C-alpha cells in the first residue's frame, strides 16, 4: 500500500459493473484466500500438492467458458475440442522438439495458438453465418464428438506426426513436462510444489486479466450483445467481430487447460473430447454461476472437488450426481448456486436492491 494511487488505479481496472466482488472487504478475502493457497504446500505432502494441481488445470477452461457463455451469451458446448487439440498439439510438438532450451514453453505457446486458430476458423463460419444460439451449441458439440472419434481411430504406426505416435483410443503419452530453462539447471515442472506455484500464479494472472477484460469497453460490449444483440448492432457494434474474439479468447483458455493437463499427467486421450468430458465444464460453470468470473471459479473448484471425491468413494454415482446437480441448478438457481446463496443472506439482499 505504499503507492495508494497506483493501487486504486489497479482497482479501477479490475473492478467494474461486470464483476461481483469489489471494495476492501472483497479484496481482503481475496488476499487471505491467496495467502492460504500460497502457504498450503508448507503444510501438505508434496505428492498431494502435485496431485491437487489437477484441479487448477481445469479452471482455465472454466473461466474461458464463463467468458463465452456467461458474459458473451454464446452456448459453446464443445470447449473440450480446443482442450484436446491443444493437448495433442503440445504432445506432438514436445515429443518432436524435446525439452531443452525452453522448447516446451515454445510448444505451450504454439499449442495454445493452434487451438486459438482452430477456434478462429470455426468461429468465423459460426458467428459470421449469424447462427442462432441453439445451433452454436450443437455444432460445437458435434465438432468435439467427431474429433474424439477421429483421434480414437488413429491407432497404428501410420498415424504418427514425426516421432509422435497418436495411439488411437489409448491416447498419447510420454511427452515431456513443461521445463523452464534456468541458470544452474533447468526446472522441470513435475507434479510437485514448483508446478503448484507456477500454475497458481498463472491462474491468478488469468483471473485478474479477465476481470480487466470484462470491465473494459470490450467487456461492456459483449455483455450488451448478450443482453440484446439487435440493439447492440443498431448502436453500431459489429457483433460478429466481438463474438468471434470472445470465442477465440475463451477457446485459447480451454487450450491452455489442455496443455497444462497434458504436461501435468504426461498423457492425453481421445476421451478428453468425448460427450462426458464435454458435459463436465458445463456443470462446473453453470453450478457456480456462469455470468461472473469469481462465482465460476468458486463453483468450478467446488464441483471439481466434489466430483473427484465422489469418484474415489462412490465411483459410479459421480456422473449421476453431476447430471442431477445440473438439472437442479437450471431449475432452481439459474444464476448459479453461489449467487443464489448470497441472495439468501439478508444484508446482501438489501445491498443488491440498493444497487438496482
Amino acid at each position, binding site marked *: 500500500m505504499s503507492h495508494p494511487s497506483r493501487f486504486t488505479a489497479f482497482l479501477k481496472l479490475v473492478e467494474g459493473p461486470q464483476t461481483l466482488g469489489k471494495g476492501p472487504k472483497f479484496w481482503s478475502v481475496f488476499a487471505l484466500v491467496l495467502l492460504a493457497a500460497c502457504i498450503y504446500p508448507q503444510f501438505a505432502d508434496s505428492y498431494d500438492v502435485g496431485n491437487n494441481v489437477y484441479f487448477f488445470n481445469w479452471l482455465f477452461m472454466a473461466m474461458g467458458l464463463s467468458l463465452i457463455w456467461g458474459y458473451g451469451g454464446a*452456448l459453446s*458446448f464443445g470447449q473440450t475440442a480446443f482442450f484436446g487439440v491443444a493437448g495433442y498439439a503440445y504432445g506432438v510438438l514436445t515429443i518432436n522438439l524435446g525439452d531443452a532450451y525452453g522448447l516446451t514453453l515454445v510448444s505451450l505457446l504454439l499449442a495454445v495458438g493452434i487451438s486459438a486458430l482452430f477456434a478462429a476458423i*470455426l468461429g468465423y*463460419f*459460426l458467428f*459470421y*453465418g*449469424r*447462427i*442462432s*444460439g*441453439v*445451433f452454436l*451449441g*450443437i*455444432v460445437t*458439440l*458435434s*465438432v468435439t*464428438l*467427431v474429433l474424439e*472419434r*477421429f483421434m480414437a*481411430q488413429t491407432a497404428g504406426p501410420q498415424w504418427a506426426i514425426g516421432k509422435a505416435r497418436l495411439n488411437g483410443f489409448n491416447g498419447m503419452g510420454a511427452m515431456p513436462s513443461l521445463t523452464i530453462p534456468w541458470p544452474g539447471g533447468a526446472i522441470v515442472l513435475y507434479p510437485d510444489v514448483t508446478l503448484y506455484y507456477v500454475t497458481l500464479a498463472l491462474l491468478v494472472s488469468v483471473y485478474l486479466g479477465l476481470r480487466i477484460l470484462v470491465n473494459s469497453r470490450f467487456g461492456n460490449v459483449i455483455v450488451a450483445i448478450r443482453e440484446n444483440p439487435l440493439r447492440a448492432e443498431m448502436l453500431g457494434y459489429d457483433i460478429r467481430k466481438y463474438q468471434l474474439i470472445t470465442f477465440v479468447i475463451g477457446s485459447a483458455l480451454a487450450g491452455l487447460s489442455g496443455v497444462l493437463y497434458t504436461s501435468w499427467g504426461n498423457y492425453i486421450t481421445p476421451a478428453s473430447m*468425448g*460427450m*462426458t468430458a464435454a*458435459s463436465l465444464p*458445463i*456443470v462446473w460453470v*453453470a453450478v457456480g454461476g456462469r455470468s461472473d468470473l469469481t462465482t465460476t471459479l468458486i463453483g468450478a473448484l467446488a464441483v471439481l472437488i466434489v466430483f473427484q471425491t465422489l469418484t474415489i468413494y462412490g465411483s*459410479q*454415482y459421480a*456422473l*449421476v450426481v*453431476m*447430471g*442431477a*446437480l*445440473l*438439472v437442479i441448478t*437450471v*431449475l432452481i438457481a*439459474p444464476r448459479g448456486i453461489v449467487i443464489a446463496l448470497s441472495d439468501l443472506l439478508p444484508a446482501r439482499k438489501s445491498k443488491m436492491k440498493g444497487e438496482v
Partner: protein
Amino acid sequence: MEFLYSLFSFLYQFGDAFAFLVLSACGLAVIFGMMGVINLAHGEFILCGAYVSTSVTHMGVPLPLAILAGSVAAGIAGMIVEVAVIRPLYKRPLDTIVATWGISMIVTQGTLIVLGTTMAGSGTPFGSFSIGNYSYSVYRVVLMIMALVTLAALWLMFTKTRFGILARATIQVPHVAEALGVNTNLVYSMTFGLGAALAGLAGGLYAPTMTLVPTMGSSFMVEAFVTVVVGGADIFLGTAPAAVVLGFIKATLTSWQGQLAGQIGMLIAVIIVIRILPRGISGKILKERA
C-alpha cells in the same frame, strides 16, 4: 452391367445413410421445430427405445411389436420429462438445452449402473440378398422404407389430424391458440412425447443392427444434430431435404474413405452451409415464399 451393379451399391449406401439421418433426426426436429427446444437427451430416448424393444424381443414378442413398445416407452418417458423439467423452462429456451443435457448424463450413467456395460442384442433379422458381387442386408432396405413411412405418417399427422392442426396453431401464435381454447400445455407435452417416441422408434429400429451399450445414444447425436442444423425448423421442408443432401455426401465419402470420413465430411459441409444458410434449408425456402 458392372455399372448398374455399382450404381445399385451406391444407391443402397445412400438409402442407408438417408434412413439413418431421417430416423435419428426426426424426433429432434419435431421438438425443435415445434418448441424451439434442442433436446440433448435425444440420444437417451433412442437408448430407451433400443433397450426396451430388445428386452421385449427377448421375451418372445415379434420384432415389429417390440419396436412399437420401445417407441411408446420412450414417448411416455418424454412426456414425464416434459412435465418435470421442460415446462418450468419455457421462458428460458436456452436453459432447456442445459437441463436436458443433465438428464442425458443421469440416464447414461444410470443405465450403466443398473443394466451393466452392455446388453445382449437380438441379431439382425431377414438375412441378406446379393446383386452382382456384393451382398446386401434385407433389414437395411426395411429401414429405408421405414424412414419414408415415418415421414409420410408425420406429414399426415400434421396436416390431417386434429392434433396436427392444434399443434401447428400452437407454434404459430401460442396465445391466440390458447385464447381459442387450445390446451397449449397439453399440445407441448404431446409434441415432446411425439419427439421422444420418434427417437424411441429410431432406437428400436436400429437396435438389431448395433451393439447395445449405455453410450449408444451419442452415436446418433452427430447425425441428428447436423441434419437439424442443415434442415432448420421444418421437418418436411428441412429435415427431409437435408437428409437427402447429407446422405449423398455421407454415402460418397463413406464408400470412398470409410465411415469416419463420411462423418467428418458431413460436419464440414454443415459448417459451410451455416455460413450460407444460417436458418437452414427450410428457413431459406420459407423466407423466399413469404
